[in-house]
């Protein structure tokens, strides 16, 4: 029996869907980051639009709310000249009982060329990718706790932009890692790109036990975790995903794991601070850090558009 191919890649190893960073080879990741560099400069032109997806329809299917991610995907698709259709799924047919695959079949009948999918269930974008016609492409915009590959790619782009080279870096990911698909995507990507030290920093209840097997150093002490780090990625405390007594309170979390200027002083003097947003000031990050000289949180948003343009134009140009 032949080995099962990664569903994101065609027979030539080219990217046709973006579902997860896991399993993507280094050259595919590097090519997306290089392409994103091109699109970053498009944002500075008189005409911020290129015709690569002219005549294509991109459907934003957000089964879970996310204004920022949906907006950056929409801007990215529009800068590539695609027609963008935003579906407020939470308020439409699914609430009338339509199944996910029936929704997709109906939208495909409307000549969709690409689906950008955000779903609370891990694996939903995979299911869609398996059932669409060969010319249709799927981008995972976040599925459950599983993956958020465009966020992972924009984190890698941001790190490469400021640090140039991955091979000497120490990257600390701080906070609610167990609920974070962002952390998972970043860990996979950074490992493939050759980051020698990745640390996961947080309380025992919020750091999954299987991380050590992924080559990640787990630290339950913040000072130990961010000491001499080149990059500190603070994660949002996901109150909406918390069930049971994982944490006593947000205030207590800030006391032990909040990123303050005093604590950041333990990292390297040229460290950058990243955050996938939206930030909870005074919970996982102090305002002095979020707005401070080390913060690259807003550039991340700008890079996110270029990275999503790179992903969409790459997969749209590759046939199944």
């Amino acid at each position, binding site marked *: 029996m032949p080995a099962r191919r990664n569903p994101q890649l065609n027979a030539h190893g*080219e990217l046709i869907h973006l579902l997860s960073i896991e399993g993507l080879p280094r050259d595919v990741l590097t090519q997306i980051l290089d392409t994103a560099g091109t699109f970053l400069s498009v944002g500075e*032109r*008189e005409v911020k639009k*290129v015709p*690569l997806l002219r005549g294509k329809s991109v459907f934003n299917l957000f089964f879970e709310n996310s204004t920022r991610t949906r907006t950056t995907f929409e801007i990215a698709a529009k800068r590539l000249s695609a027609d963008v259709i935003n579906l407020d799924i939470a308020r439409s047919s699914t609430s009338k009982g339509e199944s996910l695959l029936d929704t997709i079949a109906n939208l495909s009948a409307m000549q969709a060329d690409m689906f950008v999918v955000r779903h609370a269930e891990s694996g939903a974008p995979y299911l869609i990718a398996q059932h669409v016609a060969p010319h249709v492409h799927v981008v995972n915009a976040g599925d459950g706790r599983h993956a958020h590959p465009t966020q992972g790619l924009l984190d890698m782009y941001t790190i490469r932009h400021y640090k140039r080279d991955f091979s000497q870096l120490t990257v600390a990911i701080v906070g609610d890692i167990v609920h974070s698909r962002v952390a998972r995507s970043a860990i996979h990507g950074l490992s493939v790109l050759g980051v020698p030290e990745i640390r996961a920093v947080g309380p025992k209840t919020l750091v999954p036990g299987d991380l050590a097997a992924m080559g990640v150093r787990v630290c339950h002490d913040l000072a130990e975790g961010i000491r001499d780090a080149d990059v500190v990625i603070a994660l949002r405390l996901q109150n909406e995903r918390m069930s049971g007594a994982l944490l006593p309170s947000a205030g207590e979390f800030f006391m032990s794991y909040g990123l303050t200027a005093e604590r950041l002083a333990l990292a390297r003097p040229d460290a950058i601070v990243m955050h996938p947003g939206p930030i909870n000031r005074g919970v996982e990050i102090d305002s002095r850090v979020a707005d401070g000289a080390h913060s690259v949180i807003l550039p991340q948003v700008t890079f996110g558009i270029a990275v999503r343009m790179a992903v969409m134009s*790459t997969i749209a*140009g590759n046939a199944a």
Partner: protein
Amino acid sequence: MLQLDAEALYAELRQGVRPLLQAHGSDAVLVGIWSGGAWLAERLQRDLGRAGGHGTISSTLHRDDFAQRGLAAGGDATKLPFAIEGAHIVLVDDVLYTGRTIRAVVNELFDFGRPASVTLAVLVDRGGRELPIAAAYAAARVVLPASHRLRLARDGEGRFTFDVRDAAALR
């Protein structure tokens, strides 16, 4: 196989480009098409004693074969260190063939502003046009079978050579 002396042709191109630039005085700028044309523009800028940098432009984002071939390399090559609005642009390329690359880079150019004029100078015009595009100056005009690939190469010392290959023979 056809023999082309790229260095001799470059010397002719240099003479041919001079009047195209002089016609518009200080408003004229040189823009080379990535990658071979950009090498030519870089050297012309220096050899013609022109102040400032040359421009480089890539066809990647406006190519008409994106649906067939996907995203090509060289997309980030466009660097135009001057205002395009109102400028007289002299585009430079190594080989003019179907004209599709020229169509794409003209579109790319207009994303940066409205030039006053755009003219084209090439090292070799090999015929085979599929669009109504013509060079104001070509150092050589040759006829090549469609299966032949003609590409400019540059060695470590910056000297140009032409690489002519029969793609049919390689198969």
